[in-house]
């Protein structure tokens, strides 16, 4: 069943929508969550919460060309929140590791997020920066910080060595910092 048909089922309030979503994207969504929460039962809970959120979001949303991205964004958000709520989750250390890496991109790290930059500006900044990268670099960056893949998985996915993956990510972070400074964003 294609995405269009699945979305139509949501709009028709047919419970088959969830079955079809699970059939088509369940494994991939669980993998996104597993990367963050590192626990099968928790990932399954996040997956179920994602379907509920999708059910409540469609309508009004119609993610015709990006159903997976739409669902992945939900499960990432839910999984990160679950990490926050349950500090004991062992994956929290990995989230900290990624946070530390990303902090290298920020010209002036500060605890007050809202005082410095609003969400729309931040969205534009991030997407403009990503559009300036090559396709391969953009995907490597997103696999690491969006999908939260390990260096090993990234190396395997892009057929590069682990050291090459680390170097590429380091350079992207440097590029991002330079980009933010150059664009004059006072983050």
């Amino acid at each position, binding site marked *: 069943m294609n995405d269009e048909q699945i979305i*139509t089922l949501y709009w*028709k309030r047919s419970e088959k929508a969830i079955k079809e979503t699970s059939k088509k994207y369940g494994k991939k969504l669980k993998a996104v969550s597993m990367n963050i929460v590192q626990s099968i039962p928790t990932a399954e809970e996040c997956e179920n919460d994602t379907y509920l959120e999708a059910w409540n979001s469609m309508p*009004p949303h119609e993610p*015709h060309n990006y159903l997976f*991205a739409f669902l992945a964004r939900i499960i990432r958000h839910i999984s990160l929140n679950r990490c926050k709520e349950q500090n004991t989750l062992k994956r929290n250390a990995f989230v900290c590791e990624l946070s530390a890496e990303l902090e290298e991109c*920020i010209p002036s790290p500060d605890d007050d*997020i809202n005082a410095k930059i609003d969400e729309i500006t931040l969205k534009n900044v991030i*997407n403009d920066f990503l559009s300036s990268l090559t396709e391969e670099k*953009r995907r490597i960056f997103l696999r690491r910080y969006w999908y939260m893949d390990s260096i090993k998985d990234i190396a395997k996915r892009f057929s590069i060595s682990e050291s090459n993956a680390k170097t590429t990510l380091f350079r992207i972070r440097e590029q991002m910092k330079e980009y933010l400074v150059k664009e004059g964003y006072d983050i």
Partner: protein
Amino acid sequence: MRGKDLLEKLELVDSEYIQAASMPWKKKRITSKIAAVIFIFLSISIIIQMNYTNINISTSRNTSDKYSSLTDMLNYLETNEKHSDIKSEIISVSANINGADEMQLSVMYKDYIYHFNDYIDKYSSGIQIFSLKENKLLKTINTVSSQTAVLKEFDIHPYNYGMFIYQDELILLCTVGEYDDMKTSVNIYSLDSPENPKIKCQYLQSGHLDTAFISDNRLYLFTSDGMCACGFSAKSDTDDYKPYLVFDEKTIKWNDNEINILGEPQRVFYSAVSIMDLQKNEISQKRAFYGDVQEMFLDENTISFYIKHSFNYFEKPSIYIFDISDNFSCISKININKSGVTNILDIKKSGDYYNIICQHYSGIMYYWSSEILAVSADTKNNTLNYQSFKLDSANAVTDDIVWDDGKAIITVSQSSTAKFVIAKFDNGNVSFKNTSLYVDRVAGIDGHEYFNSPFRSIKSMIPIGNNLYLRYNRKPDGFDIIDFSDEPKYLYKSQGEIPSDCRFNYRYTWYENGLLHTVAIIPDNSKGSNGKTLSEVYVYSVEPQSTSPFTLVKKSSPLKRKSKLYGIFIGDLTVFQYNGRQFYINSETHSLEVLE
């Protein structure tokens, strides 16, 4: 901002990037020498073929040069099948049949409306009977429980459905079954007692319901299905790969002479057609077409299949035309062999001529160009003519095509606007006319499959007489009226007064007292609760032929009442005329509403 905040806020990344990053990465690193060799090889191949065009037409009873029978095809595919997880998919159908009855989601008979509701409650679907006299829901017939043993196993919601009224009978069609085992059920009810329909006849045909129509006392049913033929999953018997039909609990086999293989299919996928004589209450003809069917075009007495492998973008397309009235004999095969990529957009029969519109792309590396190809094929004399029209950009997209009076009006879009190109067909001769009127795009309307709806692909332009056309734009303005009598010009252009999320019900456009009326559905997301979205129904009315300026004459009126609907689905709204009033079914409250 700290690193953890940025990590969280990466959820703001564009969906396009997220989706792309979820796909497998194809390594592009190849050495420069290999790249150079490949480049030179490709360049030479493309230069050799650059001007290669061979569009031909032939007649042959044998529709496949490669396979002599279904068994022959299955033997080959057992080890060579292009495997796809998607076995069963709905074929796009463009139907243009004068005088034929089309499927409806709700039908009227005497003082009653019969409405098939696939979600009466969590577990059931059924036929709702409304009384127009009493203006209320009389009863609901649960279709699952009323079915005989043949259908009892399908205790689930149907996916795709439609209804007909034929004489004193109600015919309900719906796709039922599990994901990998779809069947289409046809239930015929006697309406001798309209309040108590009695099941009279049933049959099941394998596959998704693609479309159905009634013409000349015969019910034409089109379904499609696919199966896996590769490796160990191959079934032992050739008959298992044929469609099946159970008519009144008797299985009717598909014989070998009722099977056509179109070209060289790379997987098992078929379109099954059965014709039921409604007066004799029997299946009079049936045929199965195996092939890589992209789209099916129906005209009076003929059926055309657009064949192109889904797995190869550069595959040259073919069209097979069959005469339904002559026991599905093959009339013609048209091959469009042109270097580059060709996609068939639309086919229209006009006498013995088949007029075809294609979009063609050719080029190398970043230097691609696009053109529209218009072909007129004379199937009687096996001759054809064609012309091409070069588009400004390779990125130009054909938004919609409307056929009228020997011409195809083609809307070609580029970024946010579109303009018209007109292909004229005159007894086999083809010519193009370029125009300069720019209009809003119709993305999301034409070619959009309305799943669960018999209306399926909905055209965004509707001829309204005297070379006038109503053109719906989903965004930003609603609709325009364009005069094509000479150079295209606006007669009415909406000016942003219609909400951008408005959806038009294309089937309901009518003239009354010099005004053109059209029904629109406007979702009101602010009122949504518990996952339900409410809508308001409006009738917009414009005066199409008075002098400018053209303004919106009425908004919401004659709908004094803004009716709330459950869900926003264009196909849901069917309007019935009864005693000078217009009714529709509110599928949220299961009640009849009056448009007034």
